[in-house]
């Protein structure tokens, strides 16, 4: 093979790679365009589409949008989310937010949301930088453990009634919602810091509805999840409490972060 041929075939490969990438991007763009397909105007140079599809997050019905793309210090927040006196194991509460389709087309829409527990990195208390106890580094292995514990010991549910909590919001599965009519969709989430191992693993423990409890116990019995809830994956109330203590030694100021994505 001559050198020219080598170069030629190299260009060939390069071109086909470029074309493949381009085709993929075009496909994504076209797909995106179709799924946004509102009010498209052409101006000769390209396609401009006005994006009516952004979903807003509201604190109150007809209120302003408090949804942001990136968390900031001054962002507007959901309030009164805690119903117990102290934020310790057994603390509980609820919060409500409204997802709003600003296109107001009246068509049904779906979205998914996920919730995570975070330290407040914008915290003003200089004794607790990043909302964490002094000496805790956000990248460290200990912090990652504590983050797993707080995100499993605090549980979120879609429903709470006289039979207990139900419709658990699994940490790695976002929850899907569909609006009834378009416009605004109300979402209420109940949360509780489970203070006892038995409430999760003992039959008919009462706090969580039995079907839901079974689902949670099954999830946290899986090899890949057990260490998120229990220190070293040991099934005992003692290590469950140790994990609570790890949370207490790591976090000082926490908040819940809710992510909403159009589905």
């Amino acid at each position, binding site marked *: 093979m001559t050198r020219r041929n080598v170069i030629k075939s190299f260009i060939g490969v390069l071109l086909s790679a*470029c074309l493949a990438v381009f085709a993929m991007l075009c496909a994504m763009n076209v797909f*995106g365009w179709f799924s946004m397909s509102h009010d498209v105007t052409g101006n000769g140079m390209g396609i401009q589409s006005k994006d009516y599809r952004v979903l807003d*997050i509201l604190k109150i019905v007809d209120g302003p949008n408090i949804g942001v793309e990136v968390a900031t210090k001054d*962002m507007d*927040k959901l309030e009164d989310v805690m119903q117990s006196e102290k934020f310790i*194991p057994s603390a509980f509460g609820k919060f409500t937010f409204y997802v709003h389709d600003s296109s107001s087309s009246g068509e049904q829409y779906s979205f998914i949301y996920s919730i995570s527990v975070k330290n407040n990195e914008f915290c003003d208390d200089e004794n607790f930088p990043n909302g964490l106890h002094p000496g805790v580094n956000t990248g460290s292995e200990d912090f990652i453990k504590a983050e797993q514990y707080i995100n499993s010991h605090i549980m979120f549910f879609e429903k709470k009634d006289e039979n207990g909590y139900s419709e658990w919001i699994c940490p790695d599965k976002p929850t899907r919602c569909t609006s009834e009519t378009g416009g605004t969709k109300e979402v209420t989430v109940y949360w509780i810091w489970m203070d006892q191992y038995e409430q999760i693993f003992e039959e008919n423990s009462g706090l969580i509805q039995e079907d839901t409890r079974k689902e949670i116990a099954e999830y946290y019995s899986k090899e890949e999840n057990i260490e998120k809830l229990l220190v070293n994956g040991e099934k005992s109330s*003692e290590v469950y409490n140790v994990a609570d203590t790890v949370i*207490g030694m790591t976090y000082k*100021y926490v908040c819940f*972060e809710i992510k909403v994505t159009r589905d």
Partner: protein
Amino acid sequence: MGENLHVSRKITKIAIVVCVIMLVAIIPVYAWYVSMNKLTRTEDMQVDMPPIIYIRDDNLEEVTSFHLDGLKIGEEYNEVFCVSPALIGSVKNFFLGVIYTENLGMEINIYPVDAVTDTIPTGDGVLYEEREVTLSGGMGGTCYFQYGKTWPDNSDNSITYGGWTETEKPADANLNYGVYKSYNGMKFTEVQSVPDTVIEKLNDTSRYRFFILNITWPLSDTGEDNAKEADIVYIVTKGNQ
């Protein structure tokens, strides 16, 4: 050579064109994806150290029930237990309560252990419970849990058991009839040093507070009381910061 140059120019041109096309294509897609995600947060909640405590036996093992082996009519019976925080320093004071039914007319009291010694304690009014202690890790030996049948004077800060009060059945509680005694404001001390021996370990009041559960089953003149079925005794504790 000339042809090669021509080819490489061609490559550059193509590369530039492809780059421009890619940029044009990527930007709206990227913007679309970003705008699809919205997030919000809740206000801050301040985490307090969980005041988790355990009831443990004389071997420092967690217990959920006592085996009252050898409880006899007309004799006093003692059980040794301690209250211990899950994390040293996470609980400053705690509440201890004893709740029991009164079918058999038993008298039930809790007395704090003043000290644990490896020799038999002496002195007026000094009582003790002798136990063979075996701790996990292999340490062990004969220990004497010294106590008195009076609660320490609240004003004596060196003992730092705090005050105690006997309370009646809580008015709002949906509980059975019985006797409710609660001992409030008991404290753990500050951490002094790391214990080396069994005796040092059991006397470390930053980690363990020992108590004697004292049960007296009195003789009845008629035998009537003893004919009833059973009694239930609960020991409850709750940590505070």
